């Protein structure tokens, strides 16, 4: 019991450390903010206010690139020496759990920003707003979990950002298809028979990714 509380405590401390670092530097935040706004603005210049299906597709593509950019930084900003220092202090499981939590937080904020800027620049075809916000949050969580694990692997391969795209894009394809399908109900009053199943599948995928990350990350760190 005591050990469990200390593990939790350590994880939370690491999350706090990442948050404080981010609040001081504000690098990731403003970097990604600029990224979102310029992307959405370019879409606006090209197609104005698209209709709902294209709006949906555009939004999820923006989400994808935002998550790649925001989360790739989470391991790249740690220098080799600092990683070694963490390794001597905490169990790798606490470390990856902290990264997962921090990235979920970061991605939740980024998702809201992406949603708001899409609404401003691309118009609002959404009927069921709260449903869509929920799906966006779920999508943000799923994408951040997946890319955290992949960023950890890519960090081992000489911090290669291109590698993250190669590894990540095939894996995130089914995820994104699933999310875009689930989100359809927010635009048109349509009955989708497989909807509960799709939610279950999404949750199953998240559990799978978290489980694999927890089991495999300690091996990744043995350097």
């Amino acid at each position, binding site marked *: 019991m005591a050990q469990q509380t200390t593990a939790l405590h350590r994880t939370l401390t690491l999350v706090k450390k990442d948050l404080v670092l981010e609040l001081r530097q504000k690098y990731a935040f403003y970097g990604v903010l600029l990224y979102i706004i310029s992307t959405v603005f370019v879409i606006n210049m090209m197609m104005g206010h698209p209709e709902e299906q294209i709006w949906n597709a555009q939004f999820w593509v923006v989400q994808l690139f935002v998550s790649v950019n925001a989360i790739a930084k989470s391991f790249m900003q740690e220098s080799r020496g600092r990683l070694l220092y963490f390794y001597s202090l905490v169990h790798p499981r606490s470390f990856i759990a902290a990264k997962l939590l921090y990235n979920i937080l970061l991605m939740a904020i980024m998702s809201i920003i992406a949603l708001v800027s899409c609404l401003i620049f691309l118009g609002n075809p959404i009927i069921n707003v709260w449903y869509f916000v929920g799906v966006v949050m779920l999508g943000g969580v799923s994408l951040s979990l997946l890319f955290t*694990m992949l960023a950890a*692997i890519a960090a*081992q*391969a*000489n911090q*290669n950002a291109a*590698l993250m795209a*190669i*590894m990540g*894009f*095939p*894996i995130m*394809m*089914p995820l994104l298809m699933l999310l875009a399908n689930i989100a359809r109900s927010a635009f048109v009053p349509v009955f989708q028979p*497989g909807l509960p*199943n799709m939610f279950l*599948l999404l949750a*199953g*995928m998240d559990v*799978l990714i978290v489980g*694999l990350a927890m089991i*495999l990350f300690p*091996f*990744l760190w*043995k*350097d």
Partner: protein
Amino acid sequence: MISDKTCRFAPNIDDKKMAKHWWKALAVLLLLFTLIAGFLVKIPAIENNEQSTRNLFFHVPMWISMYTLFTISVVNSVLYLTKYDLKKDILASSAANVGVLFGVMGFTTGSVWATYTWGSTLTNDPKQIATAVALLIYMAYLVLRLSIHDIDKRARVSAIYNIFAFAMLIPLTYIIPRMVDSLHPGSASSPGFRSQDTDGTLMMVFYPAFTGWTLLGVWIYTLRVRYKRLELKNIFK
């Protein structure tokens, strides 16, 4: 007479050694049978499939072979992570390589078949999309291996990604296609081949076919393992 004494390149034929390779002979025999019987046997007419039903002997066995090889690969990756034995890494990577080859062949045979039965080479069929994605994931595994130069690090990182890839392969190719409608025979409105196979001729060729193709896959895999071990023989000594 060529023997060990007269020539140092003489084949070393040993009855006991040959006895270990019986399954390779079996693979050749089964594949010969598949090729001959597969094109000659009388098959039942199933809806609009006509003669393209024969693809059953070539398309489906590729997937069974691919699954076998990917399973070998992931088992060896797990074993590598427990012992850090580089030989296991060679086994894992070779199996994944040959598995991708069989996956590509399965995809190609399926696409050619789809061109004539569904009317399009690439369709929206969930099975086709999901397997394409699964193959891309495994190709990413091969690219990941190329990008790391340190042998031990490559083995460790790629073993972890391999487990990840296998964990995605099962839902992608096994669970999702069963949850949604597919154009494939045997799902939704199109009838399966097995129920139409009243004479049992399809299954008579199908079982030898998938055994033969799987054995061929394992054979290519053992050859690749031997080649890779020779490449790295300085490390293993």
